């Protein structure tokens, strides 16, 4: 038995050249560091929505996100609320925003969040009419939100 094993030569440990792997990792690291955004708002855009370009450079902040696509479908925190009517307000949006606000205020009392309860992020399609913007602002104001943050895309 011993004899059989001894026939095999002891292999030397193989040296793997990791230089190219390190090169790739460095490039990836630089790319990711450049695209790193310190904002605490993570935005998942809904379908049929292209946000407008802007020269603004103010960092986004965490707050409820209302998105309105180019077909006037309204989403609150990525959940569908309904379609904006041809005229007038979307009551469901106001009600849902009130619920979110009440929840945030309760959390604030328990000191589990330091979120600004007056602030709402509004995301509109670049081709949306200003009338749509006005109506969503109205509905948000009725729910008690007085500070609107329009989310835009940075252009260079």
């Amino acid at each position, binding site marked *: 038995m011993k004899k059989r094993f001894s026939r095999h030569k002891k292999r030397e440990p193989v040296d793997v050249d*990791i230089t190219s792997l*390190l090169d790739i*990792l460095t490039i*990836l*690291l630089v790319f*990711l*560091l450049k*695209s*790193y*955004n310190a*904002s605490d*708002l*993570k*935005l998942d*855009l809904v379908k049929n929505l292209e*946000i*407008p*370009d*802007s*020269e*603004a*450079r*103010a*960092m*986004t*902040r965490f707050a409820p996100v209302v998105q309105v696509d180019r077909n006037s479908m309204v989403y609150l925190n990525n959940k569908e609320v309904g379609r904006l009517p041809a005229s007038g307000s979307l009551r469901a949006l106001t009600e849902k925003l009130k619920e979110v606000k009440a929840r945030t205020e309760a959390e604030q009392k328990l000191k589990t969040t330091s979120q600004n309860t007056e602030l709402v*992020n509004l995301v*509109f*399609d*670049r*081709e*949306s*009419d*200003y*009338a*749509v*913007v*006005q*109506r969503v*602002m*109205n509905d948000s*104001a009725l729910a008690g939100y*007085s*500070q*609107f*943050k*329009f*989310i*835009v*895309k*940075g252009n260079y």
Partner: protein
Amino acid sequence: MKSGRKLKKPEKLNLVPILDSVFIFIFFLLMSAQFLDVYEIGSSVPMTKEVPEKSDQDPLNLTVRITKEEIEFKAGTRSPVTRKFSHEDREKILGFLSELKKRHPKESTMIVKADPKVSFQTVIKIIDQTRAPAGSKETLFEQVVMDTGNK
């Protein structure tokens, strides 16, 4: 002639710990990466406030009305100044606003009114022009109050 010294084999660096940390760092960055550069433009609900009746300077009360064809600026309440520009008059708009800012350095608010049919992108473009000149640190009227249409 052979030298008495033994040739030393080059020592290999132990890259395992640094590779571990780089992997963790990359994983963290990948998880938090947002490949869409998003920023915000703030606005607040229009509110009224009382101002003392006797004031030396005419309050600016800068209002911009945006239509599909033109941009109209209105400044002042006692003797309002109205200027109209086309959407391409970027330089003229900048000149007009810089002049206003020089005369009213403490003013930073602008009311934005737009026709219901004007696209959101157009409104944002005008706001960009009136908040700060492109590529400059100087600010003009950075506080924007969007008209909510409530009469």
